[in-house]
């Protein structure tokens, strides 16, 4: 299984600012994803982080709000831009295993926007 380190684990931010979340995997993986989990809710896919090219965003999510980088096969960042209280949520990095079956998750970043 892949070990995923996600930083920061939590943060409290002022509205209008931006936060960059880092995701580091202990092995090269093909697929990396970013999810949002609002309190008591399920996981919603934000985007697929593509190595060396622009991320693929799901409906309702845009690059200007959630820019994503993936400079190599083991690292990705998600930025939450111009934050508002509605962005308060848990953000999760996920990767698929070498056989592209299991999905593994980081511990999440709990973001509170005040």
């Amino acid at each position, binding site marked *: *299984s892949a070990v*995923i380190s*996600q930083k920061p684990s939590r943060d409290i931010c002022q509205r209008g600012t931006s936060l960059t979340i880092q995701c580091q995997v202990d092995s090269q993986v093909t*697929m990396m*994803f970013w999810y949002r989990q609002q309190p*008591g*809710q*399920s*996981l919603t*896919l934000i985007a*697929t982080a593509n190595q060396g090219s622009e991320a*693929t965003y799901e409906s309702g999510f845009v690059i200007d709000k959630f820019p994503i980088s993936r400079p190599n096969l083991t690292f990705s960042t998600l930025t939450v831009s111009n934050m508002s209280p509605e962005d308060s949520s848990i953000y*999760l990095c*996920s990767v*698929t295993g070498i056989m*592209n*079956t*299991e*999905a*593994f*998750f*980081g*511990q*999440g970043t*709990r973001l509170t926007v005040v």
Partner: protein
Amino acid sequence: QQQVKQSPQSLIVQKGGIPIINCAYENTAFDYFPWYQQFPGKGPALLIAIRPDVSEKKEGRFTISFNKSAKQFSLHIMDSQPGDSATYFCAARTTNTGNQFYFGTGTSLTVIP
């Protein structure tokens, strides 16, 4: 549109009971059905998974039952313990959409000592 529908939303059982969580799907292209367990403050962790060519899979106290014709699958937890108290998510995946996973809405399970 919710690709995977999960019920119940919450569940309370006595220790030793057998909670059952159900999921249903419509997309016949789904080819992998995992269950995830999430404790507060943690990311989801893979618990057990099944492929559609198998009707049942057991791992320890956890069993998945799969009904391909009904497009339903369920998680059974045998001899439930207070430590099983967590949120459980079913999911489904298809390689047709780049290995994207679709998650159910989650079930909050409480096992009372």
